[in-house]
């Protein structure tokens, strides 16, 4: 069975500092990997995804994540955060076989301080 572990429940960071949100997964089959962001009282927004190809994927707002198959990780990074990045971030996996199911980590709350 697949599972996702987000190693930090909360990450406080000052504005303009770099940040890394960690995600590890376990799976015996090939997976697709996703990061979603949830702002307060809102649904989930897709931030970026890895399906195949280049292991480094980027979002339009400066986040990037690298798929590391040997370490079964998909950590999310941003070199300089803004106050507006304050939100909860969810890592998710979907087996490449067709189950329709996303398996989510428990989420990491990113708190950006001025």
């Amino acid at each position, binding site marked *: 069975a697949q599972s996702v572990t987000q190693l930090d429940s909360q990450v406080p960071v000052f504005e303009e500092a770099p940040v890394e949100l960690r995600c590890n997964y376990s799976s015996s089959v090939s997976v*697709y990997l*996703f990061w*979603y962001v949830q702002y307060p009282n*809102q*649904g*989930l*927004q*897709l931030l970026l*995804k890895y399906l195949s190809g280049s292991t480094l994927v980027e979002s339009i707002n400066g986040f990037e994540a690298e798929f590391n198959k040997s370490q079964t990780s998909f950590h999310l990074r941003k070199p300089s955060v803004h106050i507006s990045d304050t939100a909860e971030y*969810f890592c*998710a996996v*979907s087996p*490449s076989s*067709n*189950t*329709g*199911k*996303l*398996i*989510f*980590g*428990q*989420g990491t709350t990113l708190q950006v301080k001025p």
Partner: protein
Amino acid sequence: EAGVTQSPTHLIKTRGQQATLRCSPISGHTSVYWYQQALGLGLQFLLWYDEGEERNRGNFPPRFSGRQFPNYSSELNVNALELEDSALYLCASSRGQSDTQYFGPGTRLTVL
């Protein structure tokens, strides 16, 4: 392009009642998914509908059910509501069976 829409935004029910939640997918998307986000339990997969058929369900009791209509919109029904059913229910849609899921804003269900 309009996103996934859900109604109502908030729903308050009492124990034992039934709740009906609705979801309209992005135009052109045929698959609809339902997730429950309960406090302390994280995001849990509930149901997946594609082309009007239930394709998969998560580890939830049968009183959680739903359907998908010919226009691909979907309804989630929760019967015999329990206090523990209080949660944010998120609907997602995708273009195909293995495609990326895009989420709606959710329906917050409160069971008193």
